């Protein structure tokens, strides 16, 4: 059996993972780096991000303003020391990307251009047309090709963390091409595996967002923090769930119900200005409110019968006609392409049908502001991690910022740790891989399985999470979801694969992903059941108020024998005591 070893091993080749790899390669050229990804890095879901990345750049802006917007946007659940670090590091990260060739959109004089975004007091979102994630990812990937010290394992699927002597010492992974199991040893492992939108039935997320890294950490005894906070993006296309960027609203787009009314004015988000008013769109008002409030408004409108009915469910419309063709083609061309292709609407002529759709996980692997987890040698960054900078609700364009800042910080912490520990022993690696191979052969790959199918279990997991852990939740439905997921966990053990071949077995990969999805689902449901308050994107109809006295805390979900146990830890408050979230008025 071939073993491989690196100083730092990064799991996931998206924005956070590649940023971490470049950080190690540039600053520590003596260190060896492995980047392992179940897909080629250019396929990572960072590629689909559209609107932009936030960083303070205007002379009228300040780090404190960016921090306050983020903290109030998070409904005060964000750790303020981590937020302060993020807003401070952000402009340097964006400039670093620019120096690496990222085609940021520009002002006529050649300086970086910034656009308004939801929940932000003024423009600070850097953008590359409306393909910011695509350009960011390709810039990072192409830049990473400069470094000899980075070894990539493309299309390798990590099945387990290797933990010994109380620290993480590597991973076991399947080389998808051959089906062979290999150990990869490392002094430090950084998980950059992204979120888990695919645990819900209707999501902007691509197929690969199944929470694999979250499950790896969870199974190794690390807590998943704030899992109950799942972000619904207000504007996804009905049917496919394809994302229509918030930038469409940043440029002045409006949301309208079936009565032709800009309904957000009924939800304490301010008063609408005329679309031709030069001050439209107003920051932190109406369509530039935070995502949780906008998605909740959609559900209220739906229940009141003021949404349109369509073959793919109810929807409202996003009207950008008044922007004009030239502005649309320059600033948000992909919005037009997607609308034309997938719903047959040219937004220059007609409003776009949209609805709330699962988009982002605020929760994830519990880390500090250096990306370190409670397991020495294990780090995490990006959407799979929860620092927390996003708290109970993330502001748009903070995620691309987060992956760069914390990808780099986790890299620094990972190198520090690597300098203090010896490399893993070959016997450890070999025995871990052998035992993992055996585990798969006696479970998923056995031929006398119990007849359950991936498709059935997966669909039921998605359905029960949408029912119980959607935008509005209550105890009855959440408790039912928890029980259903426990049942699905048992049924998963009876999963039998139709395909037990070795070469590029995508059914096996889908089964492993489903296992991760179930773990993530149970963490979400149990954390949501335990939080008897409403905050940000977690809204309990049976506990509609925010309860700072009891719940100004992060939830921690620990894997248990059957159900997870939920613990809590304090939120770090530095300079902004918990207050009221105010939008639409000063």
């Amino acid at each position, binding site marked *: 059996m071939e073993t491989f070893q690196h100083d730092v091993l990064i799991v996931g080749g998206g924005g956070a993972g590649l940023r971490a790899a470049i950080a190690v390669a540039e600053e520590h050229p003596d260190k060896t780096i492995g980047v392992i990804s179940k897909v080629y890095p250019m396929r990572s879901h960072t590629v689909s991000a559209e609107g932009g990345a936030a960083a303070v750049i205007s002379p009228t802006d300040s780090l404190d303003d960016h921090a306050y917007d983020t903290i109030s946007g998070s409904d005060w659940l964000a750790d303020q020391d981590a937020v302060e670090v993020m807003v401070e590091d952000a402009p340097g990260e964006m400039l670093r990307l620019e120096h690496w060739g990222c085609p940021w959109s520009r002002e006529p004089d050649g300086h970086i251009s910034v656009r308004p975004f939801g929940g932000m007091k003024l423009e600070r979102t850097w953008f590359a047309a409306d393909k910011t994630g695509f350009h960011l990812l390709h810039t990072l990937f192409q830049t990473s090709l400069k470094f000899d010290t980075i070894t990539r394992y493309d299309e390798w699927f990590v099945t387990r963390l290797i933990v010994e002597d109380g620290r993480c010492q590597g991973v076991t992974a399947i080389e998808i*091409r*051959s089906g062979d199991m290999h150990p990869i040893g490392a002094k430090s492992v950084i998980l950059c595996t992204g979120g888990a939108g695919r645990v819900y039935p209707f999501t902007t997320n691509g197929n690969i967002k199944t929470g694999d890294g979250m499950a790896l950490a969870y199974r190794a005894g690390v807590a998943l923090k704030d899992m109950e906070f799942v972000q619904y993006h207000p504007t996804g296309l009905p049917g496919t769930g394809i994302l229509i960027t918030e930038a469409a609203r940043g440029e002045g787009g409006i949301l309208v119900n079936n009565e032709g009314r800009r309904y957000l004015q009924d939800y304490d988000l301010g008063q609408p200005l005329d679309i031709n008013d030069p001050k439209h769109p107003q920051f932190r008002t109406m369509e530039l409110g935070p995502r949780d409030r906008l998605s909740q408004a959609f559900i209220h409108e739906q229940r009141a019968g003021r949404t349109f009915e369509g073959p793919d469910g109810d929807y409202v419309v996003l009207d950008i006609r008044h922007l004009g063709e030239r502005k649309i083609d320059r600033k948000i061309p992909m919005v037009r392409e997607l609308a034309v292709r997938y719903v047959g609407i040219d937004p220059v002529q007609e409003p776009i049908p949209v609805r709330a759709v699962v988009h982002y996980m605020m929760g994830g692997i519990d880390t500090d502001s250096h990306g370190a987890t409670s397991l020495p040698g294990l780090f995490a960054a990006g959407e799979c991690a929860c620092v927390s900078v996003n708290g109970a609700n993330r502001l748009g364009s903070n995620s691309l910022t987060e992956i760069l800042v914390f990808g780099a910080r986790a890299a620094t912490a990972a190198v520090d740790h690597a300098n203090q520990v010896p490399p893993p022993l070959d016997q450890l690696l070999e025995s871990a891989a052998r035992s993992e191979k055996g585990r798969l052969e006696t479970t998923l790959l056995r031929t006398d399985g119990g007849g359950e199918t991936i498709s059935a279990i997966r669909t039921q997991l998605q359905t029960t999470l949408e029912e119980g852990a959607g935008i509005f939740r209550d105890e009855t439905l959440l408790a039912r979801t928890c029980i259903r997921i426990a049942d699905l966990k048992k049924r998963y053990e009876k999963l039998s694969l139709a395909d037990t071949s*070795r*070469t590029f077995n995508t059914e096996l990969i889908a089964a492993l992903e489903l296992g991760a999805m179930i773990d993530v689902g149970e963490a979400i449901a149990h954390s949501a059941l335990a939080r008897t308050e409403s905050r940000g994107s977690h809204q309990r109809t049976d506990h509609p108020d925010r309860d700072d006295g009891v719940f100004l805390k992060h939830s921690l979900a620990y894997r248990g024998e059957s159900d997870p146990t939920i613990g809590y830890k304090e939120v770090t408050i530095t300079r902004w005591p918990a207050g009221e979230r105010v939008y639409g008025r000063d």
Partner: protein
Amino acid sequence: MTKELTRPLPRTWWLRKAPYFQFMIRELTSLVVFAYALVLIWGLWSAAGTGAFSGLHDFLSSPLSVWLHAVALVLALYHTGTWIALTPKVIVLWRDDEQVDPDFIAGVNAILFLVLSGALLWLVLA
């Protein structure tokens, strides 16, 4: 590791799609243009002496030669057309952040071609 499957391109690959076929015709026309240029040069060279020139003149006036020239003219014009269509790919002009219409570039080249050909024809006939 299991064996990968290779699917080599058949020799008739250019018959599979119209664009591939058109490409082959275009390449063929290059040969025709080249061949004609050789014929012309050889003819003029050998016409240094008057005896060879009248023989060349007889051949060139023969029906066979006229047919060959007609075919060559058609193919040469097709070749020229594809060449003109290519010009916007290398002549990329910008007015601020908008690209000058590629059809405009091709159009200018086409007009230039016609004007120059017309001038040459006038020179020869006059």
